């Protein structure tokens, strides 16, 4: 029987960061709680923060469940996390500039060449290009789990376009509106600087050819996209235009947007579409979403694309295992945050171990995301395990495996009252001229009893994440 670290209780004792919440919890009878829960849901629905779930029918405007019980970190815990996150974001960007340049880390034999250069996400079209300030990944979302008082592990890195930051901001907004007293009693670090930091980060990587206050836009695949709410939310907060591919066009050496007052030059594009859809001339000729000629403008320094095309090669699950090596190689430091031990099924010895221990492991597709195409051994039936075994054997290179982590729990409001549920954390690190991190992130919670899968597509919810001021 695995024991899970409960972030609120140490045996019968309440841990200090949760001390005041304990009283708050006691002051919340069931009827008041239900009332508040309904209020939160109505607020969310009213502002339209919804999350479409892939591969399911039903309401496309489904709400992601919001749990009112906050998740709390002490200032000290956060300080360590912050150092570790920033270190990792720096190393990942150094890696990207390197592999699209001379590839020193490969030449030094610290990462296998084929993992990088034969990787689907390795983009030949950007080889030799150094983006402004040497940044490929401007928003790095790092998924972190906790297994003990001081034990944190990085589950995966998201270097392309990590989503969910709107939940961090809206959850806080919601809590402050519903429970203002809590914020008077607890000294909680604010997160509302995020959009200003994001705007500054994007402005700081404007191309050299831009000699005025840069014009920034957010590029969305459109309002059918599951994260459209977030795209429009961020555009609104930053006061920038939310554009679709058809709103932009290339003329000469620059990109312009179509406005009611004629063409307006665009300097920085924060894109929320995949590489393949950026420019039909360069990538997919069938793409209706992209902007023909954009890559030529980008590479000749007429516009900055955030994240830079090609950034995905750093957050591949097979490359992930080498991130600690990147930290050592580029920064000459020891990693502050640990990786989860990972077996690469592509390697014969690892594969043997994985196949022999499928019942205890979590197996993931190398390129998968969103909790799809994975096996959680201890939670699966024999038949499911055998079916997955066949898939691994058929294509070992497509899978990695990790031990089933004992994810920490925090108190969560559930049907029967309050019960511990497993959580993870995704903070959003901003990389431009400076590296910035607001104290907080998106805490995802597995609402089903015993479930370790926190993805919203698999029945997960979100919580407000508090960092206490020291």
């Amino acid at each position, binding site marked *: 029987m695995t024991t899970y670290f409960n972030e609120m209780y140490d045996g019968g004792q309440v841990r200090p960061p949760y001390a005041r919440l304990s009283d708050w919890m006691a002051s919340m009878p069931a009827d008041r709680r239900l009332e508040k829960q309904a209020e939160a849901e109505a607020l969310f629905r009213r502002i339209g923060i919804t999350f479409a779930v892939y591969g399911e029918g039903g309401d496309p405007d489904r709400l992601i469940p919001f749990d009112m019980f906050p998740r709390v970190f002490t200032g000290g815990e956060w300080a360590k996390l912050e150092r570790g996150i920033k270190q990792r974001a720096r190393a990942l960007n150094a890696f990207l500039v390197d592999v699209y340049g001379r590839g020193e880390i490969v030449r030094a034999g610290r990462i296998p060449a084929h993992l990088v250069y034969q990787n689907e996400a390795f983009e*030949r079209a950007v*080889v*030799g290009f150094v983006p402004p300030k040497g940044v490929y990944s401007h928003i790095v979302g790092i998924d972190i789990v906790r297994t003990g008082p001081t034990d944190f592990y990085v589950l995966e890195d998201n270097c392309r376009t990590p989503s969910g930051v709107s939940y961090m901001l809206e959850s806080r907004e919601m809590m402050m509106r519903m429970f203002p007293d809590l914020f008077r009693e607890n000294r909680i670090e604010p997160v509302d600087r995020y959009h200003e930091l994001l705007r500054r980060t994007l402005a700081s990587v404007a191309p050299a050819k831009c000699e005025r206050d840069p014009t920034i836009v957010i590029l969305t695949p459109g309002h059918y996209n599951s994260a459209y709410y977030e795209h429009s939310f961020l555009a609104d907060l930053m006061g920038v235009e939310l554009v679709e591919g058809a709103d932009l066009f290339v003329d000469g050496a620059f990109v312009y947007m179509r406005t009611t007052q004629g063409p307006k030059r665009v300097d920085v594009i924060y894109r929320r579409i995949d590489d393949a859809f950026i420019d039909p*001339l*360069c990538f997919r000729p069938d793409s209706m979403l992209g902007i023909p000629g954009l890559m030529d403008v980008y590479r000749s320094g007429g516009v900055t694309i955030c994240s830079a095309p090609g950034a995905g090669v750093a957050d591949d699950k097979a490359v992930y295992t080498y991130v600690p090596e990147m930290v050592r190689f580029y920064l000459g430091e020891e990693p502050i945050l640990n990786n989860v031990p990972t077996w690469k099924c592509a390697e014969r010895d690892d594969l043997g171990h994985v196949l022999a221990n499928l019942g205890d492991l979590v197996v993931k597709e190398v390129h998968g995301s969103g909790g799809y195409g994975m096996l959680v051994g201890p939670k699966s039936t024999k038949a499911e395990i055998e079916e997955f075994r066949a898939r691994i054997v058929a294509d070992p290179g497509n899978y990695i495996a990790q031990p089933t982590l004992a994810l920490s729990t925090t108190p969560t409001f559930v049907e029967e009252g309050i019960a511990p549920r497993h959580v993870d954390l995704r903070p959003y690190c901003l990389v431009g001229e400076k590296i910035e991190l607001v104290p907080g992130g998106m805490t995802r919670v597995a609402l089903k009893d015993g479930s370790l899968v926190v993805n919203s597509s698999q029945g997960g919810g979100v919580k407000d994440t508090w960092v206490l001021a020291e």
Partner: protein
Amino acid sequence: MLLTVDHVTRYRYDQPVRAVVQSHRLTPARFDGQKVLAWAVTVSGGEMGGAFRDGAGDWVQGWTVKGPVSEIEVRVQGQVETTDLAGVLRGHRELVPPLAYLRATPATEADAALQALAASAAQDDPLSQAHALAFAVAGAITYRPGATHSHTTAAEALAQGEGVCQDHAQALIACARALGVPARYVAGYLFASDDGQPHEASHAWAELHVPGYGWIGFDPANRTCPDARYIRLGSGLDAKEAAPIRGIARGQGCESLDVTVAVQSQAQ
């Protein structure tokens, strides 16, 4: 050899289009086998866009044309002094590692027949193997203009047993990659000599990466390695990616294309 090129591509639209965007790889590569004496690309009504040298060493130049427009002429004129290097791409500066050229594309996917063809030419010595592969492809696909179209895949061309230089190059690339040899598609020009051997002035061939030599060109269509009669422009994973002109028009108009290429040799 001193070669002059006059290459005109005319795009016509049955209805005027609102705008055209193009990306060109129309400038001769810089390596020991060729020296550019003069080179100019013009686009009628066009505005020059961004330009840069990419990681594969190709010069890329963007162009845009504002509409409404119903005809666009892209004209390439220039003079290049070439040297026969027996196909070896000596002195070419590029950053993309050869390993990045092992990836199959839809047009260069090796089916069972291509894999079998590759296996039939497998040898221990990488250079001999490269030659054997080119020879095998030349034998398996007979040159016949009009037998295939621009979207024909390597597998389809082999099954058909006929094709043009594009099919030869893509089939060779597919075979090479099937044996773990990095390979890429090269677009360029070929001087059509009077004795009638070579076929197309606008030409394509393959490059295979051979340890110790680097990239070496192979032209199965002409059963040779590129020599002084060849001008190399740019490269890519397949024909589509290496296309000297890539473009998109915005509007309802249907596009038709008319290309004339003349490559001549001048007495030195």
